[in-house]
């Protein structure tokens, strides 16, 4: 077993939960205790798993991938000495040193842009955007450069970069800390986008992303860091990018979601089960590549579907999912596919955000509406 056991800073409940989702938990990861991987890349038999939250899953994956491949380098704002504003990189600097876990000057364009050069130099860059909303300041480097180098160089220069970025709302952040920008990046060929909805997938997809030869935007939901908690395989765990997951089976309606919306979709399905409805949940896991077959299969089987996203309605990724489903299973549909989304407004201030972010009630209402249509 080459599992790397990482003592968790979150082994005890956070003592003070504050609005950004950050804690002032005094516990510190004893990174020095981490045992380096034996070097083998063969997947070990997954004999055991244990319950962890998404933040712990992400942190242990970073430990494991850095131990496994010395080319992996982490850099971003406040990730080293401070362990990241959410503590996702806690203990990594102590374990791997300041040359591999780097506090950067405050410049997102330089963080993203230098990843291009680091990759070209043969490293495996894992930069962090402190919040996805801050990537507006790096847009020309991410969209105009990182995503295009393979194409521009006719396959000569590749970008094995994983950009980690917390995103999404519900935790009373200041402006531009909560925006769900995934569809803006999805409209940018050359970039893969992972948006795990479970802790196990966070580990499996982040492992795959770091090892992927192409750039991956890895989206981590602020609300999910501690609230999403499930069984995570203890050993090496890879989830192929581009494969959706049936999070819950159900015959009447399928809810399609990604990231934290999967959690809400499951809660809605739970409550609807009490009303005698059988509602399935399909977790896309990555929106690029998109698992078109899984969408077609799930929507065809149920005949009714609801797509949930946190972003504003217009041009959100739900539009892409619905079009994709309609193209392949129009004749199996028993009702128009519904979507639940944020509204067409900038992400609102604290007192209003709970009215903006999709919640269980809105998802349940959409499911019921979908069922009201008779074929």
């Amino acid at each position, binding site marked *: 077993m080459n599992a790397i056991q990482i003592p968790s800073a979150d082994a005890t409940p956070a003592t003070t939960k504050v609005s950004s989702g950050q804690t002032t938990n005094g516990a510190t990861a004893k990174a020095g205790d981490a045992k380096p991987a034996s070097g083998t890349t063969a997947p070990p038999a997954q004999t055991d798993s244990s319950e962890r939250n998404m933040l712990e899953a992400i942190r242990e994956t970073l430990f494991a991938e850095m131990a496994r491949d010395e080319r992996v380098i982490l850099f971003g704002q406040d990730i080293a000495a401070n*362990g990241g504003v959410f503590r996702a990189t806690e203990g990594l600097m102590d374990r791997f040193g300041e040359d591999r876990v780097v506090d*950067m000057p405050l410049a997102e364009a330089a963080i993203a842009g230098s990843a291009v050069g680091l990759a070209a130099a043969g490293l495996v860059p894992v930069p962090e955007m402190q919040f996805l909303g801050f990537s507006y300041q790096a847009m020309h480097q991410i969209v105009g450069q990182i995503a295009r180098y393979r194409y521009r160089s006719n396959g000569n220069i590749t970008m094995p970069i994983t950009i980690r970025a917390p995103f999404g709302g519900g935790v009373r952040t200041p402006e531009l800390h909560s925006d769900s920008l995934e569809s803006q990046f999805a409209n940018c060929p050359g970039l893969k986008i992972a948006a795990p909805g479970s802790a196990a997938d966070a580990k499996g997809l982040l492992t795959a992303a770091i090892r992927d030869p192409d750039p991956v935007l890895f989206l981590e939901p602020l609300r999910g860091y501690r609230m999403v908690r499930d069984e995570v395989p203890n050993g090496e765990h890879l989830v192929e990018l581009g494969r959706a997951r049936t999070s819950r089976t159900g015959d009447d309606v399928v809810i399609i979601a990604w990231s934290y919306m999967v959690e809400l979709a499951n809660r809605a399905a739970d409550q609807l089960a009490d009303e005698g409805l059988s509602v399935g949940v399909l977790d896309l896991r990555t929106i690029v590549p998109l698992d078109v077959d899984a969408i077609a299969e799930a929507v065809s089987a149920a005949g009714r579907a609801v797509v949930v996203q946190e972003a504003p309605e217009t041009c959100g990724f739900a539009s892409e999912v619905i079009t994709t489903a309609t193209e392949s299973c129009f004749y199996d549909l028993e009702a128009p596919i519904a979507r639940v989304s944020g509204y067409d407004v900038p992400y609102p201030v604290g007192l*209003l955000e709970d009215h903006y972010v999709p919640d269980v009630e809105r998802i349940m209402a959409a499911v019921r509406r979908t069922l009201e249509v008779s074929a």
Partner: protein
Amino acid sequence: MKSTIPSEPSVAPVESPPTPYAPEIHEALPDQHQDLTDIMRHMIAARVYSTRLFNLQRQGRAGTMAPVDGSEAVAAGAAAGLDPSRDWIFPQYRELVALGAFGDSLIDSVALYNLGHPAGGAIPEDVHVFPTQISLATQIPHAVGMAWGMKLKGEQACTLVFFGDGSSSEGDFYEAANLAGVRKAPVIFVLVNNGWAISTPTYKQTAAESFAHKAMAFGMPGVQVDGGDPLAMRSAVSKARQRALSGVGPTLIEAVTFRLAPHTTADDPTRYVPPEDLEEALVNDPIRRFATHLESLGVWNDELHTLAEQAADKRFDLAWERAEATPVVPESFFDHVYETPTARMVRQRREMQADLAAREEY
């Protein structure tokens, strides 16, 4: 201990215990003690407002906020060097509580903002201050643009923009400062070097000898000022303003201070700020320093200090009461996206109202 103050500052950092300020600045000032006590009151109000907002956040009643502690003299001193009826200030997010000189009503907006109310984005019309800017350094080109516009219109006015040592690493700073130099825009760049960009110390932020040195590349003067001294700030800003209005161009002022509190309510600086650095900085707390100075001039005492704190507390009570009494209309986030909402937004608003009504029924 690593020093965050470059080797040859133009204004010497104060020794501990506090000493009177650089006398050459202060003796040159006209004898306007009302001005001085006003600055003192704005600094005290800043600390009081900030502390109240910090505590409200801790109680779960207000949003994430960035305390002003350590930057009171920078902001209040700079504001005192401007003309509030003509000039404009572009803050980042830490300075607004200290800008009382630009309008007493500013705190009403700040209270609403920290409550998380949409009305908090609206600064009273007679107050020449832009709203809180969360996105770092983005306000710098905005300030240059307004200054350029003022110049085009022939106005005798300037803009002043606050940003941090961290923000000075952003492209927006370099691009805006370059433009300001080229256009000779009447803008004053106030780079608040408080030693820390969240957990990142200045030596990881720049390899320049000082932040003020960066001005050289933009063809403008760069000066380093003791940011714990509001009169040094006022003097530097006044000079920069004269320069701006005379058409010569912009100035970069590096205000050297120390962040005496966490970056924000979501931060735990004990993880990274060396305690001895903080202790040393606390000895030079700008409020205490300035109070000591005013006492030496015979225009301040403990009683006045307490009265100023009480007045600020009362003013904050009023602002917070007003803020909490301001109705919250859930669907109001559809307002002000456009002058006229799109048809789709109108439909979404209707759906949301129906949804809210259905929940109430439920």
